């Protein structure tokens, strides 16, 4: 039934499909050995038993998971991690959207906007660890903030909640992660046709209506991407919580890291599998709400 007119496009589409696969191949060649297989190794290890010395005994069972789900500690760790994730997400979104909006709509010169954008990214070229500890001379009991506050007689004694508390953990997260909101949101805002906003303005729409009905829907992809970055990084972090809470707060990965340092790989692997499922669930829910690829694949 295939006439000459139909055979040609089908051969062409076969060629195109081959070309697509060829250009995706390098990505696949990295992802398989450095993501897919290692994850399978972790999943396999979670069903094994530890010999107590860093070795793994091949003895498949669900014991690691039973232990995990019957422990109250697991629940508390997840609650603590979720609390930090929600707070960090909220503040990085509010600040990130504001900054991205400012750069995209209020800065008229593209070069100036790019320069200001780069100004925001420069600190991210330095060590995370250094950036985090840079809050210590500010927030400590003898730090700058307390010195100023007591000097101005605003408080009678140094505020203790500023450092090594949940407050400083959230400050450190927001400080490090707002850029992960700014970049994708800015990239989607910069693509919005300014004439659409002008038209709405001329048609009598208010500032709030423009934001709600035009800008937010068009920025949805950027917001979703930024949210995936921020939530997955906070949920997978152990270092910020460990250092900035002064050891007062736990996180899922901090507990996992402790199990690795005592060489309990199978227990750590089971914790890892549960955490991964939770993170993947959150990411899927966020990405399902938008189609990131729609724009280039249509």
């Amino acid at each position, binding site marked *: 039934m295939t006439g000459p007119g139909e055979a040609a496009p089908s051969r062409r589409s076969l060629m195109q499909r081959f070309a697509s696969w060829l250009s995706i191949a390098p990505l696949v060649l990295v992802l398989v050995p450095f993501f897919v297989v290692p994850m399978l190794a972790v999943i396999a290890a979670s069903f094994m038993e530890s010999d107590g010395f860093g070795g793994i005994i091949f003895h498949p069972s669900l014991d690691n998971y039973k232990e995990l789900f019957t422990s109250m500690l697991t629940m508390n760790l997840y609650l603590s991690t979720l609390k930090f994730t929600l707070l960090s997400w909220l503040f990085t979104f509010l600040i990130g959207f504001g900054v991205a909006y400012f750069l995209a709509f209020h800065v008229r010169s593209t070069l100036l906007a*790019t320069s200001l954008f780069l100004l925001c990214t*420069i600190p991210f070229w330095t060590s995370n660890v250094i950036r985090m500890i840079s809050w210590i001379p500010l927030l400590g009991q003898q730090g700058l903030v307390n010195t100023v506050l007591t000097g101005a007689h605003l408080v009678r004694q140094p505020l203790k909640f500023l450092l090594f508390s949940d407050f400083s953990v959230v400050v450190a997260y927001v400080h490090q992660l707002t850029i992960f909101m700014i970049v994708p949101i800015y990239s989607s805002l910069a693509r919005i046709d300014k004439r659409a906003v002008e038209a709405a303005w001329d048609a009598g729409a208010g500032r709030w209506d423009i934001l709600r009905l035009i800008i937010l829907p068009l920025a949805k992809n950027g917001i979703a991407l930024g949210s995936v970055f921020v939530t997955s990084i906070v949920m997978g972090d152990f270092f910020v919580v460990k250092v900035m809470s002064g050891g007062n707060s736990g996180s899922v990965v901090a507990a996992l890291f402790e199990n690795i340092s005592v060489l309990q790989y199978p227990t750590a692997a089971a914790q*890892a599998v549960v955490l991964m499922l939770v993170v993947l669930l959150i990411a899927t829910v966020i990405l399902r709400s938008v189609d990131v690829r729609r724009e280039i694949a249509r």
Partner: protein
Amino acid sequence: MSAIAKRRSRPWTFYALLALFIGYVASLYGPMLCIYVLSFQDLRGGLVFPMKGLSFHWFVDLFTQVRTGDVKGSFDRSIRLALMVTIITVIVSFLAGLGFRRRFRGDGVVFYAMIGSLVVPGLVLGIGIGLLFQFLGIQPSWSTSALGAQLSWTLPFGVLVMFAVMSRFDRRWEEAARDLGATRWQTVRLVVLPILLPGLIGVAMFGFTLSYDEFARTLQTAGSLNTLPLEIWSMTLNVTSPSLYALGTVTTVVSFLIIGLCLSLIIHIQRRRAAAGRRD
């Protein structure tokens, strides 16, 4: 008319967002400036204000003292690793960006594997790669297992940035080149690459930053020799002198040099394009 009126008076939201922006940048740089300033103290210096003296003591200390660890070696390794990661990230992301423009069988699987690779906790992936290398009997090292671990982090970022860049790329330019008789390779080299170049510089900057900073994935995969973030991590645990701050100052100087390079490249390209546009 309305454009002129708007140009004359800014709405109140402009000032509110300007204040937010300035506040954000101040809180971004403020704490770091404290660290840079505090790193120039002399021998008596401590970790908090006030400043004690003014000297390069802690910088010399950083690169000469053995007790602070192998700063020079780890710095060298981090730069080399970041360069390798950057080059691979740019090439692979560019190709993947081209390939993902069309739907094809299995594209969803690759896409979700990529997202998975991005959102999986770094430490967990590090353990997985460590277990895999242990099972295969290969010694983990910064240039093999750590390189792969970092790529699993930088590539999804690179490809997502390419998605954003590609969505602004008009496919008609490519089709026009084809119609004018360009081969596939000529189209890529003479049309697609030059148009996407600023975006690719962006991908490179991302690749470099994320690799240079990477900690969680590298921790279990770097083997016996440390990268800079691992060195800093061990320093935070046992060094309580301003040499830690001096290290922060040094890495920031390097960053400024690289940012400056990328920015001037982008400006150079834009100037050249503007000039070419005037000529036509």
